């Protein structure tokens, strides 16, 4: 009070000397909290942006990987299809056998009184092991059929659904030949 100049004005009641200085912690805390909030907001904003950038990069990588996967799957599918076709072809090749020995065996089985009037061998395209045979023999009768079938059986063929029709001087025989691989 020593350095305070006297004051003789009409005094107003309830003149404040100001809040206690210790209470300054209230606005100081407020400003610290505000600054901290701003810094945290900034930090979170930057983190979010970095996360979004990373997410975009990851999405792009994922998209690339998906494309690569699709390409690989497509190539795999192509290979599988090729493989399946090859397998079919291999099975077909495996199922198919040369018919010339059959024709030769039938020819050799003919007796002196018998001749081949008609012979047709039709391979089933779906099941190459099955061959539909139509044989018309003039002369010889059933005996000649039996002889011919014996020659065919000797080549590891079996007959299935065999039908035999006897004419006056000829015999019609038809059956499905099935190769029986014993190896």
């Amino acid at each position, binding site marked *: 009070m020593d*350095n305070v*100049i*006297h*004051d003789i*004005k*009409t005094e107003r009641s309830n003149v404040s000397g100001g809040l206690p200085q210790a209470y300054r912690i209230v606005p100081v805390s407020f400003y610290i909290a505000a600054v901290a909030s701003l810094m945290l907001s900034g930090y979170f904003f930057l983190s979010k942006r970095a996360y979004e950038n990373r997410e975009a990069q990851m999405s792009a990588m994922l998209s690339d990987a998906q494309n690569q996967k699709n390409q690989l799957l497509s190539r795999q599918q192509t290979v599988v299809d090729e493989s399946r076709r090859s397998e079919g072809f291999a099975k077909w090749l495996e199922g198919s056998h040369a018919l010339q020995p059959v024709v030769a065996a039938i020819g050799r089985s003919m007796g002196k009184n018998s001749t081949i009037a008609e012979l047709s061998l039709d391979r089933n395209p779906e099941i190459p092991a099955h061959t539909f045979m139509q044989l018309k023999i003039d002369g010889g009768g059933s005996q000649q059929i039996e002889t011919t079938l014996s020659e065919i059986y000797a080549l590891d063929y079996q007959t299935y659904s065999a039908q035999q029709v006897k004419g006056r001087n000829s015999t019609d025989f038809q059956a499905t030949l099935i190769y029986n691989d014993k190896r």
Partner: protein
Amino acid sequence: MEFRDIKEVLTFAAFRPEADNPRFTWQQRFPKRKSTIVNISRGHVSWCYFDKKGRVDDTGEADGEFAEVAGMMADQWHSHTEDGWLGVSLNNRFIISLEHNLSRKKGWEDELRQNPKSILGTRHDRSKRYALHHNPETSASLLMACDDSMIKTIEEVMRTRNLRPARICIGLFAMTANLLDRISRDSALEAQDLILVTWLDNSLCVIRQKGGQWQELRCRSGLQPGDETTVSHMLRPFIDSATPSTRVVLMEDAKGGEFSRRYRQLFGNLAVTDVTDEHNLWNILGRH
């Protein structure tokens, strides 16, 4: 709680004293805020604008009574204040006297404002307002008494001009108290035989101090401009009783002021030390 209260807490304004709290210095009341102080003399008004750093920014003066000058200058004064708070230095219709054995009980400053009779006893006059400055070494005190009606008139004029009195003081008394404080802190100077002269715009206070004791005091406020006779009559007893070792210490409201120009020669061969600073009055009122 209103928004204004929250704003004052957040701007730390709530931790500062109110502008009209008499228990704080001018700088404590207006920290980092611009302010204006007006000195009201007889037929003359001067003023000073302080910037936000508490330094003298600009000064001005005008002839005329306060009511007339306030009518012209109120808006400008208001623009150089925060919320219209104005400091006032009165320089008329007051008297300073030398008293002894006045009460110095704790809180005497507030007591003098609220119940001056308990401090002054029989010296109290209901038509006056008082201020005191005690000698820290002796029982002597300077007692300033100012007309209550004068203060009320000034407050009324300010109210009509949308101005508010932050502080009303007696500039000459503040200068005198400041000078006495400075001397009391200088032990070499305090021990000397001194004539202390304070002058503020035709108001004069003269004190004889010897060995730290205040021996005699004369004061006149609101002298007529150029009234050399009265000034001479006031100084004569001090000069007559002076010895060759007596030293005159002079403080004016501004450096190279009217007293130095017109009346300094009245001291004759006495050593005169002028302790007046630039903007002396304004610096004292703006710092304390």
